[in-house]
């Protein structure tokens, strides 16, 4: 790596304070870029909020104040007017999984997550604004009145870095739930969260939301750092993206009082019904939709389509139909706009090696595209996905011709996040079966790039779980049976004697 790259600094940001030293070097193995960041041991003692009572200032804010803050922050984050974000974008290029146009597109649209109506929908659909704002009264059968309120928690976020949106989403979620947030940034997106934090400090240095954010890099698994931090005295919840790789180091700290919310790694699939072969136009449409789901974000998202089950039939004619569809998907993938999909960066060696092997033998798999990083469509000539399907990446998808939809459904499991289905009539037919098998989001084919944060994620509701759900029971003896009344009655009886 060139010396200019080793000079990149990933400062830590602790509740309004910028920490820039003492610097140590991270990364740089196996040809990866390296960077400098302050020694985590020098600041770990300052990372956590010392006492839960220090969350009080977040309760001086109304939900409307939070909306105002996020809306204003979104405006400040617009790439064209924020030098911190511009700098973060430039610095992220060597580290990111995405190519520059895709990274830029993600940075350009990041502010949308902070928009007022979007945050309202997010909060309302995920938690319910009333519950965030105050005690929501609910009567119970036994006559009591229960007040329920969703309180914030002291949280540690181990975020994924395959898109800068994870950093944005985490900051929005914490503001909505009035959480204190410590974000541990990943080495594939070391800059975004810090740039947002610094923008917040500039925009409203003394605002409680600004004061309740800390962003830092340390190498996941740094025992000394994590032992000090991951303690129920410091944090109540750990939200870990990326599943095992990021979680394995912290599982040892999980104990009563310290909860783990794990957003496991996922894969996604596609099911294309026989309707796709009813006309040339239908086939073009299905192909374009599938191409979008495969190509978007250069297949770097967990929602990216990888194995595509095609109800073309698996006899000779069926396979031929599937081949035709495969060719069309490949052609259309190359036509996706640059902000959505590009030739890939760092095309995985293993996948490249597998494609090279397919070039050498087309008996079982037909290949559209080559090993040039522009992507490829592999069409299985029998009813069987390539056995390395879990590795599919770099805009490489595998079409599998099948005869019955059950053959697709049984391939889903708890690792399956999104299943894009064409057409919608087929989706309605199979959604229960897909869900029972393990799939977590069933979607019209061609729309995975358009996501909403106001829905459950991966089969759970992370924002709800980030909250501490507190109840306040009001009971009166007139309506709720009370044991203490019998004591008094006894007293009265004794006094009377």
């Amino acid at each position, binding site marked *: 790596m060139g010396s200019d790259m080793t000079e990149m600094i990933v400062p830590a940001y602790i509740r309004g304070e910028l920490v820039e030293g003492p610097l140590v070097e991270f990364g740089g193995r*196996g040809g990866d870029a390296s960077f400098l960041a302050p020694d985590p041991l020098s600041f770990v003692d300052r990372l956590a909020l010392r006492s839960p009572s220090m969350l009080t200032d977040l309760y001086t804010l109304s939900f409307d104040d939070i909306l105002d803050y996020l809306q204003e922050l979104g405006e400040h984050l617009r790439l064209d007017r924020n030098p911190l974000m511009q700098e973060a974008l430039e610095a992220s290029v060597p580290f990111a999984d995405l190519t520059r146009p895709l990274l830029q597109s993600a940075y350009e649209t990041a502010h949308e997550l902070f928009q007022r109506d979007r945050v309202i929908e997010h909060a309302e659909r995920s938690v319910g604004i009333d519950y965030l704002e105050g005690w929501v009264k609910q009567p119970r059968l036994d006559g009591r009145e229960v007040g329920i309120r969703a309180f914030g928690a002291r949280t540690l976020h181990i975020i994924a870095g395959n898109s800068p949106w994870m950093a944005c989403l985490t900051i929005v979620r914490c503001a909505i739930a009035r959480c204190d947030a410590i974000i541990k940034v990943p080495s594939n997106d070391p800059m975004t969260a810090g740039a947002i934090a610094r923008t917040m400090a500039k925009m409203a240095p003394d605002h409680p939301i600004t004061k309740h954010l800390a962003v830092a890099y340390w190498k996941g698994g740094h025992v000394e750092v994590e032992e000090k931090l991951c303690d129920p005295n410091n944090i109540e919840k750990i939200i870990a993206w990326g599943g*095992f790789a990021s979680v*394995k180091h912290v599982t040892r700290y999980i104990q009563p009082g310290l909860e783990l919310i794990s957003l496991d790694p996922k894969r996604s699939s596609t099911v294309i019904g026989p309707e796709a072969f009813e006309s040339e136009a239908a086939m073009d449409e299905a192909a374009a939709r599938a191409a979008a789901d495969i190509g978007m974000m250069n297949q770097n998202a967990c929602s990216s389509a990888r194995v595509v089950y095609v109800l073309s039939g698996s006899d000779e004619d069926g396979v031929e139909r599937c081949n035709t569809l495969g060719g069309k998907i490949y052609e259309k993938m190359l036509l996706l706009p640059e902000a959505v999909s590009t030739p890939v960066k*760092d095309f995985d060696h293993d996948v490249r090696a597998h494609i090279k092997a397919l*070039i050498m033998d087309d008996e079982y798999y037909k290949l559209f595209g080559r090993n040039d990083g522009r992507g490829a469509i592999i069409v299985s000539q*029998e009813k069987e996905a390539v056995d390395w399907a879990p*590795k599919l990446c770099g805009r490489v998808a595998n079409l599998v011709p099948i005869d019955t939809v059950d053959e697709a459904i*049984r391939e889903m499991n*708890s690792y399956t996040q999104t299943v894009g289905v064409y057409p919608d009539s087929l989706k309605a037919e199979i959604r229960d079966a897909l869900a029972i098998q393990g799939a977590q989001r069933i979607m019209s084919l061609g729309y995975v790039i358009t996501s909403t944060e106001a829905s459950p994620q991966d089969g759970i509701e992370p924002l709800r779980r980030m909250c501490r759900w507190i109840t306040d029971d009001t009971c009166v003896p007139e309506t709720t049976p009370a044991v203490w009344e019998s004591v008094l009655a006894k007293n009265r009886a004794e006094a009377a004697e």
Partner: protein
Amino acid sequence: MADIETPTGIEAFIHDPVEYFDWSLTAMHSVPREETKRLQLEGLKVRFNTLKDRIGMLQRLADGAGIDAIEKVEDAVPLLFEHTVYKSYPASLLAQSKFDKLTAWLQKLTTHDLSTVDTKDCEGVDDWIDRLDAQSPLCISHSSGTSGTLSFIPWSKGEMDRFGKTWPVAYFQQFGDPRPADNQLIPNCHVISGLHRKGGSMAYRINDLYAKYLAGAEERLHCAFPGKLSSDMTYLAAKIRAAKARGELDKVEVPPALQARMKEYEEKQRNQASQVAAFLKETTEQVKGERVFMGAVWNVHYNLAMKGLEEGHRHVFASNSCIASGGGSKGLTVPDDWKERVMEYTGVDSILMGYGMSEISSHATMCSEGHYHLFPWVIPYVLDPDTSDPLPRSGVQTGRAAFFDLMADSRWGGFVTGDQITLDWDTDCACGRTSVFVHDSVSRYSEARGGDDKINCVAALDAHAEALDYLTSQ
């Protein structure tokens, strides 16, 4: 030495390099660099010209890349086989015992005619390998199957035997010494292996070569388990492990015939570590004071030595024994003094470190300067890890290792490894060998890359396997 200017000279060199160099390690490592380059280029041309139309997969690759002649060694880079080639068959062929189709697939990787191999009623991998052994010139070697599938490398019996000849030369001759007398070529030493005597992977196939070219007699070959490690069981165990990791255990069907064997296999596996330890202890006592060859990863040597030293044993073998090792740390923390302890226990004055792989017929052994020297019949390449383009064949280069094994005459010898190496093309090593060398810093790309805290929400197979390992070890 034969005349290298004539085609017969080149052919002699690539056909049986040990004979060509008259079994002399000193001769092998004393070829002037320019001569080596010439030998290698000419040898590569012969291999390409004779194999191109006879190995189906090579032909397709060459046609696709528009390569019809080799002018310089770099021309072969697009033709180097990736490890994926050796497992490019659909997994169902193996899972459903379609050995006729598997044989047809294998045919595309070898010049040997497999059309007469009878796969009818073939019951499993063991059966299939036995039939190939009996009915064809092949002697295939398969991988350990950690990914849930097996790679098959179509070594021929002839290739395997010629490879065998390299062992006494590489491990029992000293550079600079004259060629040993004919009756000294084979060390006739005791060979100790903590594995099964037979099996379908190179680690087991090699026992036949040990018996012939190191031990000189079967009774001097000591294996921990006299029988054969079943390839079916290895495969099934790997498949189950991979299926567990994928959350697809419900999809693995274990044929009833194998279920009982599976149980037995698992039982054996459970007791294996203690049995191997007992075997090693017993065998070292049995061959005390004798000349011994023992090759193993560091911790096997170390554990044996520590135990032996604890019991008061020192210098248990003859000093002209060979204790060889390689294969990296295996994810363990290596004590600084492991070699000293092993030397103290065994009585040898150095541990011979080797770098090799089951795809090629060479093992580079380490010289006194700490360099792995390559034999001249193995053409090294250092590739850009991202693009797989060749890095310059000069200076010191770090990148992905690839090799062309000129000795392979019925399969294609070009192979891309998963290793990151640093290769010195120009420096004359102080040890006196003229051959180019690899620094002692070999690492696996799978470990080196992406290991630095890149977090991604995309599920990869390895992550699941690792998760499972972790969870079950808690």
